[in-house]
């Protein structure tokens, strides 16, 4: 086996040093009944060529997003990632290193995390950020539980504009932890209902902007209402590129901002791995979940970075930890940071403007299709439309024209009664030809 360096001679010699007659002897603590004598019923080892063939065949059964017109968003977005990003994250020193617990030989990773935290704080308009979470949805759940720790209240109100997967994840996890989760009904313009629901038991309200229907909302009034009731405002964003165009959560009064960072530096990957962004106001930092990297000095007074405030974490606090999380999404965060370093202020703003422009073009084109009703008033790069009949069936039918027309809302939540709603996103990778192909296909199908 190509990955196993020991030779039969090595093994024999090592057993001699150990003083064991055989490797079986080393497994003697395993109850005899549980020791498998035979190989399990699985194929034997295979060479690279064979493995590549099998996986290549599986990959070929899928239709990559880049193969033609493609309009899926709803929490994951197809953006162009510079080649530099993927090159650097594959460097052995980043790819094959562990969590930077030994800071003397992990300054590469640590400094990147410090840069990452600073970038996330800047994007969200908040004071501090952690070193990343698993993804946006789990970051959302963690934010809700953090609000519980901060406010010592148990109720969380989730806006009807929150991505249903985020709501479900939060419900599963935060509910398990003892919270009452109030999920409001799905609605394109869901934010008025949020304010109405806030009461004195409310730990937090969770509002997404741009929301799952693409709607961009100024959440300032929600923040005021929440703060008046002693609750925290958590602002969720699933499209991190929107930070380049839209007012930041911090500017609008958010106490905690969480986001899916996939859009910057990371491929679609059929849903993962992604990278959760998590930022909050400075005064809340000690209730923050996840890893944190902080600046310090070494024994010679030189600037350096370490993982810090780990007294919040499970490996120190065990059952009293703020969270059970013991990892981050380091390599995805690295990709995020490199891509954002390449973009810079100028590039991110251009990219966001470009996305918005493409979406406006898309919206205008959709609005011209008879039978299609655009539901989203103000948007960043995604709109919801109402189509005649079942949106999922329509998407499937349009595949015949080579067009992947977006995400039917029923895919996210079959119970919402929004089977005729379709979500369509455009990014800088969308061309006018793509939009024309979509419109032509729609007109053919809906026209009939």
């Amino acid at each position, binding site marked *: 086996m190509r990955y196993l360096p020991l030779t039969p001679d090595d093994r024999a010699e090592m057993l001699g040093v150990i003083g064991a007659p055989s490797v079986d002897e080393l497994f003697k603590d395993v109850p005899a009944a549980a020791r498998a004598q035979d190989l399990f019923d699985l194929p034997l080892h295979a060479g690279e060529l064979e493995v590549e063939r099998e996986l290549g065949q599986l990959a070929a059964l899928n239709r990559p997003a880049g193969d033609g017109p493609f309009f899926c968003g709803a929490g994951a977005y197809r953006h162009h990632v510079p080649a530099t990003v993927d090159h650097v994250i594959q460097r052995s020193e980043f790819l094959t290193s562990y969590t930077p617990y030994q800071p003397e030989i992990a300054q590469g990773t640590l400094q990147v995390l410090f840069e990452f935290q*600073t970038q996330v704080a800047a994007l969200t308009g908040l004071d501090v950020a952690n070193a990343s979470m698993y993804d946006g949805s789990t970051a959302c759940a963690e934010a809700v539980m953090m609000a519980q720790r901060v406010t010592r209240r148990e109720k969380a109100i989730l806006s009807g504009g929150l991505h249903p997967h*985020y709501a479900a994840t939060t419900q599963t996890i935060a509910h398990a932890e003892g919270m009452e989760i109030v999920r409001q009904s799905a609605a394109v313009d869901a934010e008025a209902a949020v304010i109405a629901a806030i009461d004195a038991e409310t730990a937090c309200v969770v509002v997404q902007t741009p929301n799952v229907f693409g709607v961009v909302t100024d959440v300032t009034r929600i923040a005021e209402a929440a703060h008046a009731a002693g609750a925290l405002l958590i602002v969720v964003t699933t499209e991190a590129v929107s930070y380049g165009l839209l007012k930041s959560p911090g500017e609008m009064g958010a106490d905690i901002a969480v986001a*899916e960072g996939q859009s910057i530096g990371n491929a679609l990957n059929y849903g993962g791995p992604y990278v959760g962004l998590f930022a909050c106001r400075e005064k809340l930092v000690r209730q923050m979940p996840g890893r944190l990297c902080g600046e310090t000095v070494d024994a010679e007074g030189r600037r350096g970075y370490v993982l810090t405030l780990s007294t919040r974490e499970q490996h120190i606090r065990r059952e009293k930890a703020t969270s*059970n999380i*013991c990892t981050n999404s380091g390599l995805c965060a690295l990709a995020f940071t490199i891509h954002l370093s390449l973009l810079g*202020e100028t590039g991110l*703003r251009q990219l966001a403007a470009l996305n918005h*422009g493409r979406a406006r073009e898309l919206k205008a084109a959709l609005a011209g299709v008879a039978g299609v009703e655009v539901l989203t008033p103000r948007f960043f790069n995604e709109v919801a439309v109402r189509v005649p009949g079942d949106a999922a069936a329509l998407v499937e039918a349009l*595949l015949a024209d080579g067009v992947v027309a977006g995400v039917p809302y029923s895919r996210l939540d079959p119970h919402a009664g929004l089977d005729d709603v379709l979500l369509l996103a455009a990014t800088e990778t969308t061309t006018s030809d793509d939009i024309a192909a979509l419109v032509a296909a729609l007109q053919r199908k809906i026209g009939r």
Partner: protein
Amino acid sequence: QDEPLLFELGGWEKTGVDLPAPEHDASDLGDLVRAAPIGLPGLSEPEAMRHYVRLSQKNHAIDLALYPLGSCTMKHNPRLNEKMARLAGFADLHPLQPQSTTQGALQLMDRLAHWLKTLTGMPAVALSPKAGAHGELCGLLAIRAAHEAAGHGHRRRVLVPTSAHGTNPATAAFVGYSVTEIAQTDDGRVDLSDLESKLSDDVAAIMVTNPNTCGLFERDILEISRLTHEAGAYFYCDGANFNAIVGRVRPGDLGVDAMHINLHKTFSTPHGGGGPGAGPVVLSAALAPFAPAPWVVHGEGGLHLVEEAIDEAAQAFGRMCAFQGQMGMFVRAYAYMRSHGADGLRQVAEDAVLNANYIKARLSSVMTPAFPEGPCMHEALFDDSWLEDTGITTLDFAKAMIDEGFHPMTMYFPLVVHGAMLIEPTETESKRELDRFCDALEALAQAAKAGDAERFKGAPYLAPLRRLDETLAARKPKLTWRPEPTTVAPAPLAAE
């Protein structure tokens, strides 16, 4: 050499991308548009490349030398896996595109599930958890759901051995369970009689790591699971150490009800400086109905991803995250499994255990093994009694290893051993590298005993930085870069 921060290198007007000018008029978003500067300096591409390449060289990595972190299974990360994960058919696939266009991805998930189930002897697996601790949470939520479905919602206590990973009690507490510790015997195993005395009808589960964190196989594991099941509790196994037994022992045969599998440990997906990981959870028949969405089923016209339990499986306890989990890691882990095959995986466990025992044997003459009797599994545990009177601590010794070109072992864990040093070589180390490592540690140990304390107290000397002041970092946390007060703030960018 000091490498400045991005924020000290970059410029507000610099960018390392070329984007076409937006063709459209200003948006109608009005005051929803961000006016103030974001605060993101940019770098041209050559500058960015150099910045991050320079930073990378400050890291240790498996690709450079032995990385003997106990409990972390730092093994070789095959680049074939990276290549496969980057095939457009996997990497450029949207999680919500029509399932008819992702049949290959669903097949891959299905095959991965088949391998995991076969290797563990368990009937079901939940693929979506994103890391080991996330998998623990998934397992305990399944256990809680099962108890509640059976009317046993009063079972709110979880038994955890003193040697457990911190995530075990943290996860149990997280789902609202109280934690009771189980004592350990002198030979480093669960104390059966203590376990028996603490099992009662309010116990929901026990959480046992096996092989345990002392690197030892729980000899009484069948008795443990029998007692647990008799008490009406479930047996959660922490699978962090699965590498020691993969291909040789099936947890299902030990009576395990739920176990997470760190794909980044046993199945070689890269650690990436701290994630992303992946923590699928295998489940027994009793727990399988409670597995969270989504899962793959075989249906007409191919595979189908069930994303929300509507009818038959309405017992699913919910959802662990958006979408399907760590697909990129699934591809890598599957490529690894297929490469090894049933025969190779068995050899993995054998070589991992052999390597650890070899280190234990070689270093026992200079260091004190915590459990000298009998073989260890895939990691060798030493205590610090051999350092007594030298004035050198486990930490000092570990930091001195850095000067020899090695990453330190895991220190002060498990907590049950004083000044613990937990060494896990993994199966991908050659005898030559093991000997190089043992030679270096022997020499260091002799220097320690010879009283050369300065070599240790001041170590590392040869790393990019000397010891970092962690107290300072925690006392007054500085978590983001901010311009020096004297620095002129960048001019606000004109709104576009």
